[in-house]
């Protein structure tokens, strides 16, 4: 007979090898192509912004949890994911201290105040970005031209862009141009392309001004497909977000393909709207969640004060998540409850 004590526990006694750190690590890996492209476009300062933001997020989580005497959770890598996600949504010229501040706000206020991993109602990275956007609107809407992309003075004058606001260093995003009333052809002129097809190709590849990591639709989709392939995210939300953005952009009279290829919608669809804690868990809820994000994005882009609306679209739909979680699938063997028979008129009398 065994002399030592046997482990007694309630079944199951077999466990998946998938763990939270492994999931978070795979998200970091999926973001490598988009991040690397951002560094390629904007150079060392972009890399510095990414690293400072990630380090600040991890440090904020570590220090805050020490202060409140909670267990250390930095090793689950979720703070690093938040930091990286935030950095990739910032303009490349964002000062490092601003990135750090955004990361601290995201982790402490949006995540830890609510109880940490899994308990936050709003996407922490997007809260960080929204916080910076409100606090420093100028810095957060100043865009840089990618290295090697030269916008000639001819293009600037022919588009009659305000002098000073745009020069060869400071740039406008394609969505910014459209917001200021320019056409797709004008965007093409600005980016130096010669046809709509060429323009869309350049937008898809990501060679234009924008947030650090959200310009290349190609690389973002690759990262998203990687996460889909290994089962870290599911297809419902990205497909619903993209399809709904396409549809509502078209309904509101915007070029639907252009809408998908610019701004943060692809990044949001694959990496922000799929955030575990803040998206609905039920398939039906996820479909409505995605549709809502597409709709709000299109409406903000068309009618809002900002050229881009993905951040707010996702945050607004985050509010709906607890409600959308009530839309459960019917359980196995569901039997509709029998309604009590209405008392007949005879009986009522």
């Amino acid at each position: 007979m065994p002399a030592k004590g046997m482990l007694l526990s309630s079944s199951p006694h077999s466990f998946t090898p998938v763990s939270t750190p492994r999931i978070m690590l795979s998200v970091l890996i999926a973001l490598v192509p988009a991040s690397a492209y951002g560094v390629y476009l904007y150079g060392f300062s972009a890399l510095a912004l990414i690293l400072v933001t990630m380090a600040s997020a991890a440090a904020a989580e570590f220090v805050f949890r020490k202060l409140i005497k909670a267990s250390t959770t930095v090793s689950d890598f979720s703070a690093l994911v938040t930091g990286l996600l935030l950095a990739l949504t910032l303009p490349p010229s964002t000062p490092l201290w601003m990135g750090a501040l955004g990361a601290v706000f995201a982790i402490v206020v949006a995540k830890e105040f609510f109880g940490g991993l899994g308990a936050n109602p709003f996407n922490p990275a997007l809260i960080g970005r929204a916080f910076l956007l409100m606090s420093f609107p100028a810095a957060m809407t100043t865009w840089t031209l990618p290295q090697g992309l030269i916008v000639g003075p001819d293009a600037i004058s022919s588009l009659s862009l305000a002098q000073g606001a745009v020069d060869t260093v400071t740039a406008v995003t394609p969505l910014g141009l459209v917001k200021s009333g320019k056409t797709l052809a004008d965007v093409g002129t600005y980016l130096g392309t010669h046809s709509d097809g060429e323009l869309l190709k350049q937008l898809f590849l990501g060679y234009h001004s924008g947030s650090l990591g959200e310009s290349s639709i190609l690389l973002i989709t690759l990262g998203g497909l990687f996460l889909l392939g290994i089962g870290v995210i599911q297809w419902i939300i990205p497909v619903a977000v993209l399809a709904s953005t396409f549809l509502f952009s078209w309904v509101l009279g915007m070029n639907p393909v252009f809408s998908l290829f610019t701004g943060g919608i692809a990044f949001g669809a694959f990496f922000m709207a799929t955030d575990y804690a803040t998206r609905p868990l039920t398939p039906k809820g996820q479909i409505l969640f995605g549709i809502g994000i597409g709709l709000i994005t299109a409406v903000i882009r068309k009618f809002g004060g900002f050229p881009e609306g993905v951040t707010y679209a996702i945050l607004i739909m985050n509010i709906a998540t607890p409600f959308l979680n009530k839309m459960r699938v019917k359980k196995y063997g569901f039997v509709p409850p029998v309604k009590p028979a209405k008392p007949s008129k005879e009986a009522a009398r």
Partner: protein
Amino acid sequence: MAVKTFKGGAHPPERKERSSGLAILRLREVKLVVVPVNQHFGAPLQPLVKVGDNVKRGQKIADAEGRMTVPVHAPIAGVVKKIEPRTQSNNSEGPCIVIEALPPPAEGQPALAPEELVDFMPPLDPFACSKEEALARVRAAGIVGMGGAGFPAHVKLAPSKPIAVVIANGAECEPFLTIDERSLIERADDVVEGVAITMKIVNAPEGVIAVEENKVHAVPLLEKAIAASPRTRAGMKIRVQLLKTKYPQGGEKMLITAITGKEVPSGGLPMDVGCVVQNIGTLLAMVDAFKEGKPLIERGLTISGGACTKPANVVAPIGTPVADIIAAGLAQVDEEKLGMVIYGGPMMGVAVPNYQIPVQKNTSGVLLLDTVEAKHYDEETCIRCGRCMRACSCRLSPALLAVAVEAGDYKEAEKIGLLDCIECGTCSFVCPSHRHLVQRFRVGKQILRALKQKEAQNAR
């Protein structure tokens, strides 16, 4: 053959390669058996023997009145030594009858005649006798569902609704276990016969032997047995159905859905969709009960696990302490590496403190896990990844159900489907945070049932 399955589920490591190629061994010499009095789902039994009584092999030693009762028989000839509470395979104490085998006759003494040692019933032809006679035989033979629940077979075989299909559950979706696989291979004829007997009793027009793809090598043997069976030659329709290898494919509801496409209604029984599902071991016990008049006094089980240096598929008398099977050399264990003992499979089996506990009617396997396999994880916070939502074969939204149960909101929990949980444990298996999901649901179900009972009493 089209491979069928259900939605959801998971793929725990199979680990069947350790014992799937090993022929079933029979334990011959048994010195002592510890027979739990209650081995079925239903009302408790009363022992029919006293300490000091001589019992024959196959003699009824415990029984009770009532529909939900199944008698228990002496697995060996011997003397009743004790009747006392002992630890059972569900890790709780219950009354057990301890029988010591008769010593071999002393020098010069004549051996006892077989009729003094064995007390079987006369054979009965299930295809010639009445349904009532057949059901009486199934009960008299002490047959229960041998897959785990121990539901009385004579109750299952007397459905109040017409049955369209009898399903032989050869899915064996629990990792490690291979006893059903070996039985399908070594006793294919009897499996087919068991299906035919069940079809005759419930008057079903079709029989399906369902096996997972990892046992595809058993299919030609089963098809040969079907073709050769006098029952199919007489017109009975029996076929083999391959199923995807996926846990919990062998769950009764999942099996029915995979094969018929129908869902057992919430709170209902398989008969509500015209099905009767029988475990392979149960079918073999039925064949023995009719052909030889032999009650359920022995069963096959797999002994395996990382600390089991010599795994085995064995047939042993009910009540045999598993330690005695190992002592007899049929299987071997590395005591140094042993970290956990499980009666049943790793997904639904019960962890127990030692392997002295006897084989019971529902013991399909005993796992001796090594210290690496015997894992214990601390529960971490739910990251709301949704893996349990997709894995739940009953579509119960475990993540949301757990929130309701933890909050004590049993009204909401019932609405989500707490009582529909089959406790397969897939949710806890797939959870990257090792949340105790099914464990909460098990406790929650009991609390909810108690609450409902109280409510019903108050309403009166």
